[in-house]
């Protein structure tokens, strides 16, 4: 048997040192899958959700034969066509994303092993979380118990990422769907890497262990006490921040200094130290540095502006870079004495250093902050209002800033108003600006357009004081047991995860509004990364942020922040645990069956409203392979291809009934796998729609339809035109809308159908039809 063969071979080859005696579950068919092990599953998904390619560029420029013109069906000098080229670039992007998380995980695990030893147990929630690593168990078929066990898992992930990356080489894969299958593969690996990173840091650093009551922590520029020395950490790797916090605590300085963060480091810092402050998402980097508030800037890795060192120099703040991946051209002072480094940074002899020892980073950052603060007097890089009113007169009204702005903001008009003495229009841009700085690069007059916007919006910036629940990590097994049944039956209308970066089309408020809308509708709402911060940047009439308004327990009507980007693994993990803990499907190396279960039964949708990075691409890919659809904001269309279902193609929407083997038409549920929404309104209607699953009970379907129709009516002003595709029996119809809907069904020639025990895997049919 194919599966037996795979099983024996892989067990011998790959499991190596991993202790697995304690896990009695039999190994499923796909332990440590290779590039093609799950290809059949991928092709099933890709048949239904065919890629729609949106080439970002007409040419290929990857080799010296080129550039090659790939327009109009032409092939490159290597033979590749445009469809394959687009999916090749998607694969490349996902390899970058997966390598980034996995590289981060490797570093973290190595560091923690050095500090705490290989045998340190992976406790991520004690008895409350017995399935500590659902993705790893599912993919690899092993149950990691100690920090040391994670090394072998990373060996596998790294090996597979290398293979996937090699597929991107000129003259390898030629089939676009095979590229896509490999995209899914690397996305799946990415989730393993993320899980490893997060469970390692939770266990070693004592982050909240699946705690629904994780503390509320401060969020926003206005929460920073600027009277104190301020250390700003940017990036995604908490290790140097831990060095800083530990040093402060050990020396009784934690009341004296403010430690704050941007991006995911900020999340992880507050999981370790609840007095840490989160400034905001990635797009706050320029505005916060230029404000002059940080006295020391510490950079670790990922999502750092590569001009952060230059920007910090403008405010005369010393910089410490701490990662091999980001040395910024600075001298390596790892082996020098802390005091010598401190002296050089404080005196300005050197504006920045590379220190690869996190403990030394801690000591140096704290000492420098204490010494440099009285000297630098919060030197700003943002001009004062009267200065701005003078400089703007140099604006030529050429419009280059607007044409460079990804949001097409009406900057020239705002500049014109400024030339006439009013900064009000510039202030209006503050909420919409994603802080990329392209406007300034474009300006032929060298005007600091972004700085002007920040100054104009300064009042808003200073009023940014919010709360966000510190990242809680995994979802408890008991929470899964409680919600499993209502989710699978459709009574909890869906699980919506707001994840990712901050390339928002119309400012961040949209994210907060979407979270509130779905939490109020009693969906399970989960957040992570920059979206989790953005969701907190809003207050209701009572002055409460969404995290104060909704519970942190994983249940209907919640708002759960799992944590930093690597904590996204817990969102996928929760879906997997629903199949495993609630539905008792075997987990161990049983990927297809679990993914099939999720696709057909778990109404989960990911929303990356401001997705921008390659990591966001690979995270999405990991969700796709599991059967979880992902919606991105309009900028996400630049990921080069969508995976779209065709509701109008009847033949695409059949599943097997596992009871009888009969093929049953189940309608377009879920309709798409990857999809860019144009507006917030469209995204909201689509979230409700994509939560529908073939397995919904009649009661559950009625609830889901109620939300879909209700949102459609409110946001589109009309009834949806595809209700007939989702009503399977008369009982599915929401009672309050019965007459209206029956009329539509009659017009559409609707016929009742059965509700199957749905699966796409013929091997799961229990009684084969004769």
């Amino acid at each position, binding site marked *: 048997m194919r599966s037996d063969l795979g099983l024996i071979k892989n067990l011998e080859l790959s499991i190596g040192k991993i202790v697995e005696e304690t896990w009695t579950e039999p190994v499923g068919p796909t332990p440590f899958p290779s590039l093609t092990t799950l290809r059949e599953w991928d092709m099933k998904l890709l048949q239904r959700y065919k890629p729609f390619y949106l080439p970002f560029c*007409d040419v290929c420029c990857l080799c010296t034969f080129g550039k090659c013109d*790939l327009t109009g069906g032409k092939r490159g000098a290597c033979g590749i066509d445009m469809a394959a080229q687009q999916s090749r670039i998607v694969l490349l992007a996902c390899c970058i994303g997966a390598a980034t998380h996995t590289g981060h995980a490797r570093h973290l695990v190595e560091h923690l092993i050095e500090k705490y030893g290989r045998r340190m147990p992976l406790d991520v929630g004690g008895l409350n979380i017995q399935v500590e690593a659902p993705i790893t168990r599912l993919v690899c078929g092993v149950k990691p118990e100690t920090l040391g066990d994670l090394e072998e898992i990373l060996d596998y992930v790294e090996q597979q990422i290398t293979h996937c990356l090699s597929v991107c080489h000129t003259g390898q894969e030629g089939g676009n769907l095979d590229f896509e299958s490999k995209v899914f593969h690397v996305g799946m690996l990415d989730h393993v890497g993320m899980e490893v990173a997060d469970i390692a840091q939770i266990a070693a650093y004592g982050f909240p262990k699946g705690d629904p009551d994780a503390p509320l922590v401060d969020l926003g520029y206005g929460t920073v006490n600027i009277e104190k020395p301020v250390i700003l950490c940017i990036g995604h790797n908490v290790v140097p921040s831990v060095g800083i916090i530990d040093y402060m605590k050990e020396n009784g300085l934690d009341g004296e200094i403010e430690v704050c963060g941007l991006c995911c480091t900020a999340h992880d810092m507050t999981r370790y130290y609840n007095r840490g402050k989160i400034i905001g998402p990635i797009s706050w980097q320029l505005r916060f540095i230029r404000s002059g508030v940080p006295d020391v800037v510490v950079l670790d890795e990922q999502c750092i502006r590569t001009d952060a060192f230059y920007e910090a120099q403008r405010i005369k703040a010393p910089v410490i870079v701490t990662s091999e991946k980001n040395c910024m051209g600075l001298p390596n002072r790892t082996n020098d004495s802390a005091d010598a480094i401190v002296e050089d940074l404080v005196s300005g002899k050197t504006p920045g250093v590379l220190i690869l020892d996190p403990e030394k980073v801690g000591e140096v950052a704290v000492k420098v902050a204490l010494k440099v603060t009285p000297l630098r007097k919060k030197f700003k890089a943002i001009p004062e209002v009267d200065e701005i009113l003078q400089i703007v007169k140099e604006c030529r009204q050429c419009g280059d800033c607007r044409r460079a702005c990804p949001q097409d903001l009406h900057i020239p008009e705002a500049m014109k108003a400024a030339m006439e003495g009013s900064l009000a229009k510039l202030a209006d841009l503050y909420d919409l600006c994603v802080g990329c700085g392209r406007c300034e690069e474009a300006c032929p007059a060298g005007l600091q357009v972004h700085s002007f916007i920040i100054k104009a919006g300064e009042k808003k910036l200073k009023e940014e004081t919010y709360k966000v629940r510190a990242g809680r990590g995994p979802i408890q097994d008991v929470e899964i047991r409680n919600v499993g049944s209502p989710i699978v039956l459709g009574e909890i209308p869906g699980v919506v995860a707001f994840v990712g970066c901050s390339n928002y089309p119309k400012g961040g408020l949209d994210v907060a509004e979407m979270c509130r809308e779905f939490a109020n509708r009693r969906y399970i709402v989960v957040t992570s990364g920059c979206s989790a911060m953005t969701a907190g940047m809003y207050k209701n009439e009572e002055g409460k942020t969404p995290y104060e308004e909704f519970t942190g327990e994983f249940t209907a009507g919640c708002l759960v922040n799992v944590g930093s980007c690597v904590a996204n693994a817990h969102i996928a993990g929760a879906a997997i645990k629903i199949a495993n803990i609630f539905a008792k499907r075997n987990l161990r190396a049983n990927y297809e069956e679990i993914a099939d279960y999720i696709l057909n039964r778990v109404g989960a949708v990911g929303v990356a409203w401001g997705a921008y990075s390659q990591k966001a691409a690979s995270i999405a890919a990991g969700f796709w392979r599991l059967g979880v659809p992902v919606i991105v904001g309009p900028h996400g269309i630049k990921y080069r291809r969508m995976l779209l279902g065709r509701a109008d193609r009847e033949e695409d929407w059949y599943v097997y009934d596992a009871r009888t083997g009969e093929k049953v038409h189940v309608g377009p549920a879920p309709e798409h796998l990857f999809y860019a929404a*144009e507006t917030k309104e469209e995204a909201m209607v689509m979230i409700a729609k994509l939560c529908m699953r073939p397995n919904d009970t009649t009661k559950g379907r009625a609830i889901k339809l109620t939300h879909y129709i209700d949102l459609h009516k409110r946001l589109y002003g009309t009834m949806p035109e595809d209700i007939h595709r989702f009503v399977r029996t008369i009982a599915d119809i929401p009672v309050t809308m019965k007459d209206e809907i029956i009329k539509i069904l009659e017009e559409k020639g609707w016929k009742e159908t059965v509700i199957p025990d749905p699966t796409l895997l013929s091997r799961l049919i229990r009684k084969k039809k004769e």
Partner: protein
Amino acid sequence: MVMSAEPWQTAEIPGPKKALVITKPEVVAAMIKRAQHPVLVVGHKASETDFEGGKLVDFIIEFSKKTGIPVVATAHMIGEFAKRGFKPAAFMPAVDIGNRLVDPSWTGVDGKGPHDLALFVGLYYYMEWTILSGLKHFAKHLKTVSLDNVYHPHASWSFPNLSHEEWVKNLKVIMEKV
């Protein structure tokens, strides 16, 4: 004033094949008249863009009524049309209509067979150029026209970057000539 035919977004540098510039609006009118089965895709910005005291969407409605070209409303535009008592032929996400247009066997928004001409207006610039790029590469049976006031390099035909006034004038000429 007619600005040069450079893409509106500075770095959106096209490849070897870029849109022909509509210098005379009459050309578009003639293309529409010649087309067997055109379709007009209208994005959400049509309700935000001013047009002669009203909004662009008001012009679109008149245009569709006059030419009989079926309208596909994307995003929440359907509500904006409904408010004005106009019923588009279909509403669907922008990526969905793009995806259907690449399929030569798709029978169109009205079931009357494949479209041979697709006009676009009112999407985010970057959404429109990516969708037009998809169509340029994968919908050989289809010609595309952007009716926005900015240059869309991936369309078959596009206006250059135009001032608002110039653009309004051009659209009115098209309306007259169809």
